[in-house]
């Protein structure tokens, strides 16, 4: 039963899994026409605009595209540094 654990855990290395992962990325790109570098540029610009008004943590900002059925959603997670920040 040498293949037992492989068959239980090996799914992530299977080519079908890679096909799905690659398709997930390529479909988001095809549907939105947004490349990773454009996303990075947008992120920098968003940080710049928001920083003018409130104090945020630029290194912790996350911008990503989420899929919701056939709709794509741009999700920005921007942690705010409060004035009375504890810890």
């Amino acid at each position, binding site marked *: 039963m040498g293949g*037992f654990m492989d*068959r*239980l855990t*090996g*799914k992530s290395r*299977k*080519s*079908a*899994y890679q*096909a*799905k992962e*690659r*398709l*997930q990325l*390529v*479909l988001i790109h*095809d*549907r939105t026409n947004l490349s990773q570098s454009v996303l990075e540029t947008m992120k920098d610009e968003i940080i710049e605009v928001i920083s003018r008004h409130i104090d945020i943590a630029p290194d912790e900002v996350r911008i990503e595209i989420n*899929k919701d*059925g*056939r709709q794509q959603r741009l999700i920005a997670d921007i942690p705010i540094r409060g004035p009375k920040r504890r810890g």
Partner: protein
Amino acid sequence: MAGKVVTITSGKGGVGKTTITANLGAALASRGQRVVCIDADIGLRNLDVVLGLENRIVYDLVDVVEGRCRLRQAMIRDKRIEGLALIPAAQTRDKTAVSPSDMVRLCEELRQEQDWVLIDSPAGIERGFRNAIAPADMVLVVTNPEVSAVRDADRIIGIVEAEEKGPAQLIINRIDPEKVQRGDMITTEDIVELLAIHLIGIIPEDDNVIVSTNRGTPIVLDGRSKAGKALRNIAGRLLGEEIPLMDLGRQDGFFSQLGRLFSGGGR
């Protein structure tokens, strides 16, 4: 009641559009429906050979559109299957010989006397594809369980939606359950999740298909073929019947794999 116009398309070539169109036509006609199949792939016609009607062509789609014959004269009746007819594509012209509005006009006329008008779309997203979807009441997108076919299907689904012909419905063709089981073929569930549209049918890989294409006899007439059964099921769903998806013998979920491991079998 006026007939329904269904376009079968895919983006990528070679995924099985023509075979599926021919067989859905044959399956619907053998259920007593009046069906006409239109080959919209002008310059690269093939629906005629898949249906085994290539020797009986006199007039074609372009002859009808350009007024060289009456619609009825271009319809080749299948002598084996009552109620099935084909309008072949022209072979010596290109896709610009027909326009989307020509197709809409033609289908308006056909739907008065037919229950179903099935249009076999050419591959690609250009004029021929636009012609094929222009008159559609329903669009069936065919894909294979491979990266390039799924990607192209996604593009097509997007265009069909933008043209307000959606939501398209999905057919996954040529599934090999053993490859799925080995983890070397993307699963039906994953494709449906990626494309996020309704699945109307899955068709297994089946060696009988090449034999039936060689002979020009629709596979749906072969009672023993799995692909034939899968295609008859899709025809049944088009008729509004509730038919569960075909069990392809092997499940790919974690728990069924686990079950197989402990039962010690590969069945």
